[in-house]
């Protein structure tokens, strides 16, 4: 199956943020994104927020996919969008997913917190890769038609 051409020219940066070594889920996601036709730049485990930004600049990435599985995601991701804005990446698509917080918390609350931080989407544990790919397609096509950029 040939991937849709609009995916082929998109670059996504993936990695596990902070002092987190849980690489497996992130690797599965990266492989699925690549199979779907995206150009994927993998940063792997233990990636500081700044390194996502630097990689995105150098590769002219269209989106950053942040994984966090050890419960410290909220701390690590604070100010992530601000860093992007500071680096001239104000329009970059930001996704975050994994075990983002400690303990049993209502997913709706957690999602809202990450959206408020400037992430375009947040995903709970157990999300399937094809669900992510479908939403990427939607978000990118919205941007192409100018809907996402409205008001900027």
């Amino acid at each position, binding site marked *: 199956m040939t991937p849709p051409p609009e995916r082929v020219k998109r*670059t996504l940066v993936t990695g596990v943020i902070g*002092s987190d*070594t849980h690489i497996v889920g992130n690797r599965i996601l990266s492989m699925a994104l690549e199979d779907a036709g995206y150009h994927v730049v993998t940063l792997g*485990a233990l990636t500081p927020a700044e390194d996502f930004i*630097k990689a995105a600049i*150098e590769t*002219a990435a269209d989106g950053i996919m942040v994984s966090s599985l*050890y419960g*410290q995601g909220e701390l690590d991701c604070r100010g992530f969008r601000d860093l992007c804005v500071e680096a001239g990446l104000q329009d970059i698509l930001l996704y975050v997913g994994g075990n983002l917080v400690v303990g049993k918390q209502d997913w709706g609350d957690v999602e809202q917190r990450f959206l408020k931080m400037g992430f375009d989407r947040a995903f709970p544990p157990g999300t399937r890769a094809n669900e992510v790919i479908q939403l990427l397609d939607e978000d990118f096509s919205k941007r192409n038609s100018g809907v996402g950029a409205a008001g900027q």
Partner: protein
Amino acid sequence: MSNPAALLIDFGSTYTKLRAVDLGDGTLLGAGQGPSTVTSDITLGMQTALDNLEERLGALPDFKYRLASSSAAGGLKMVTVGLVKELTAEAARLAALGAGARLVDTFSYTLTKRDIDSVTANEPDIILLAGGTDGGNSDVILHNAEMLAATELTCPFIVAGNRSVVDDVEIILRDAGKDVRVTDNVMPALGSLETEPARAAIRNVFIERIVHAKGLDRAHDFFDQLLMPTPAAVLEAAKLLSEGTQDREGFGPLLLVDIGGATTDVYSVADGEPTEGRILQQGLPEPYLKRTVEGDLGMRHNAGAIVETAGRNVVARHAGTTEDEIEALLEEISRDIDHLPGGANERAFDAALARSAIQIAVTRHAGTVEIVHTVNGPVAAQRGKDLSRVKTVIGTGGALVYGDTPASILSGCLYSGDEPASLRPRDPKQLLDKNYVLYAAGLLAEAEPEVAFDFALESLVPVNGMPGKEEEHELRITSG
């Protein structure tokens, strides 16, 4: 009938140095030295050096090769430009250093009018323009090309950036009348370092353009080829000694330290992979052939900076003196930077300076390992090269070769419990280049690898087995 010989010339910033090698058995036939006269008439210093050599040898042999390197006329002055400081800008910097350049400026992100003024004022010999991985960011390198195109700069440009736009970058510069060479991206994909093509391009431009531009070719009657900047020749020697040749077994991974009047250069030939258990590698991979230059650590031009960085108390302790005395000695050096150490206290101070310079320079060159605490327990994360298992360290430079206590000076490069994170060599064999021949071996490496290897080997002695005082004076050939 004597064996054919090779003449190996270094047009240094202070001296014109010669080494004559017997191509039959790789022994040093003799050395000659003259002043550096590049700024007036390069042939004068060369002739003096040749006369000096002839005097020592009785008669000059037939030279099958006459090869030269140069660090005169300010060295190979380069400016590098990249995008992100830690990524393509760093890759460009490493490529230029590996080619033996003296970096006068390094830039990241978009060049401003101010940056351009600084570039122009520095009068670089070559500008290396990088930025963007292949298919990555193209705006910045295009902007920077436009900015550079609008200048009066006449130096050659080497473009080693995002493959997708190198054609456009080339056109922008060429249309402005610039000399442009395009080579492979120094970072084709994020985190992959490809500095060899840029290094080769720099070397070609050096031979084709720079030798002439600097007036070095006025001495062309004296040499067949001026091959490379001197630091590149030293790096070639390090590579040769590490890898060996078809018939000579090499030393394996090695570290080489060259301590000079203005800078301290460190070279490593090693992949630098983690040597212990499960260690995560972070940051940019580093080149197998790596050279770093510490412009703030020179024995004469910035002795004060060495003392400041190492700590006055540390230098005083190593020199066996007081901090006040250190202050007085520093003042003396700043009054006369050509001053060579005379009295015992001056010599001890020089040794302490050299030891500190080496320690700081090798610490900056080597990688680090630190323990990161995660919810799964501690994890070791390495940045840069692990040189802890490097088996050979070679020291060169006047302060080491002619100092009273080379073993103590060179020990500055070793692993220390005070800085457990620094991956410096733990238990290497320590050697000195007693005849100061490494540049010469590097020059000869391509044409006669076996002879060059034996020639370098002959000069290497264990750091504790240096010749005695009188013999040393015979060998005294000052560094440039």
